[in-house]
């Protein structure tokens, strides 16, 4: 079994305090270590996730981070899979434990996505995170590619611009109660409809922000004696789809996510409809709907959304952290943070105004890179 014995997220925002990602990594690791009741020397494996050396100005960051954390003679690996990097790092940690090669694994995700480079440069780099020969050369942005995909999804499902606005309002409303969130904003529909169109139908307010931040987990192969409520990770799964949108079987659907979920639920031995809480990858307002549908979390996602079932007091709360849209997105930290959020919630330790009273049995963390190109999901189980 794999137990989450430590978990933490730093604040996600645009840092103006002169701090470095190396400070955030230390902050989150020390917090997780304290929660785990382990000592530094107990950690035998360190798994790092960050998306790109372009952002950090540091090649081979995992070894300098190990030094900063005072971890020596440990196994170290860095995981990268675009936006999915953090969740793939979680998977790597789970596999390390299940293979019996590791006992105590520290997973740390981070990225200084907001403050190190001008946003125009980041945008340009991101064009090369799709196929640099095609999308990179014609300069198409992530927003434009997501927009093309959601247009086909909207045509097929009846999802409309009011739904996109309401999803934005909901996620940012949740973020209002999350002290670590980047965009704690109370929006109204008019404001969203008046925000500039970046790539139709996506407007500026439909987009998740680029954030700075870090998140961490400590996994163990043993249930801690002093904390029997530590949750388990019981299922992991990942899968890819073609990078080139035009080559896909279904451009509007996140087929890779469906496949990843199938693998994770099969490993966990549960069905998607048993999930009681989910953090899903809402890089854009519409991506949340594409994710919910692909993950099989609802048999009628649109009706369930419009009926409020995905809100904090609904039957399946989704993105109560605020999601990427509200909480923010320091890329390499995102998947780690989503899993950490699920773990805290399943142990009843989440932020006061966001903690679900009736703690669900199972939670899902869903992450992807590209436009649903590489999906990675993890299923957690409560021990309360």
């Amino acid at each position: 079994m794999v137990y989450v014995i430590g978990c933490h997220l730093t604040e996600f925002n645009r840092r103006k305090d002169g701090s470095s990602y190396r400070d955030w990594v230390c902050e989150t690791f020390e917090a997780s270590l304290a929660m785990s009741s382990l000592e530094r020397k107990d950690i035998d494996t360190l798994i790092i996730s960050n998306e790109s050396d372009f952002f950090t100005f540091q090649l081979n960051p995992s070894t300098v981070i190990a030094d900063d954390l005072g971890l020596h003679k440990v196994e170290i690996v860095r995981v990268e899979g675009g936006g999915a990097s953090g969740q793939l790092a979680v998977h790597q940690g789970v596999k390390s434990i299940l293979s019996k090669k590791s006992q105590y694994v520290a997973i740390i995700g981070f990225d200084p996505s907001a403050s190190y480079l001008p946003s125009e440069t980041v945008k340009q780099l991101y064009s090369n995170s799709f196929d640099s020969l095609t999308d990179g050369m014609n300069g198409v942005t992530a927003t434009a590619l997501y927009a093309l995909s959601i247009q086909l999804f909207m045509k097929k499902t009846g999802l409309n611009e009011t739904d996109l606005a309401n999803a934005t309002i909901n996620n940012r409303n949740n973020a209002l109660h999350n002290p670590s969130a980047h965009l704690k904003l109370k929006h109204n529909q008019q404001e969203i409809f008046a925000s500039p169109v970046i790539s139709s139908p996506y407007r500026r307010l439909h987009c998740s922000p680029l954030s700075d931040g870090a998140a961490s987990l400590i996994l163990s192969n043993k249930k801690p004696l002093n904390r029997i409520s530590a949750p388990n990770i019981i299922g992991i799964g990942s899968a890819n789809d073609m990078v080139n949108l035009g080559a896909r079987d279904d451009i509007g659907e996140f087929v890779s996510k469906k496949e990843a979920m199938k693998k994770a639920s099969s490993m966990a031995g549960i069905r998607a409809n048993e999930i009681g809480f989910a953090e899903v990858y809402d890089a854009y307002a519409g991506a949340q709907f594409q994710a919910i549908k692909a993950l099989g979390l609802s048999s009628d996602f649109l009706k369930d959304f419009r009926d409020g079932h995905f809100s904090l007091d609904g039957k399946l709360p989704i993105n109560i952290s605020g999601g990427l849209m509200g909480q923010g997105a320091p890329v390499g930290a995102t998947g780690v943070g989503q899993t950490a959020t699920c773990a805290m919630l399943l142990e009843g330790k989440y932020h006061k105004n966001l903690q679900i009273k009736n703690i669900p049995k199972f939670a899902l963390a869903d992450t992807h890179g590209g436009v649903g190109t590489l999906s990675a999901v993890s299923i957690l189980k409560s021990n309360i």
Partner: protein
Amino acid sequence: MKISKKIELNYNISFGKMSKWLTGLTEGFALALKCSLCEKVSFPPQKICTCGSYKNSWIKLSGVAEIVTITSGLDGNYGLVKFEGASTLTVVKLNNFKGTETFGKILKSSSQNPSIIITPTEVK
């Protein structure tokens, strides 16, 4: 403390098998790969067909495409289009898009930035 650090990266990129395709774009035509087994035509070219075959040959498309859907805004005009003779759709940049066009013709792109750009047209 903050410092501003600027580095310039002058890549000298080679493209191997894809060179032919990229050269085509700079000359204004659309080269696609046709699978020798199932005859699927991919544009952009896929080295391995979805049927699993790696045997293929280059074919020249007419360069005319039908627009399936477009997105516009501050990030520019882009579309998903179906090139005549291709089995896949293609993400393209739209040059001077007015909003009413439903077709397009591939445009010769810069030799230093071979890209899939179409000039939209009202009729085929």
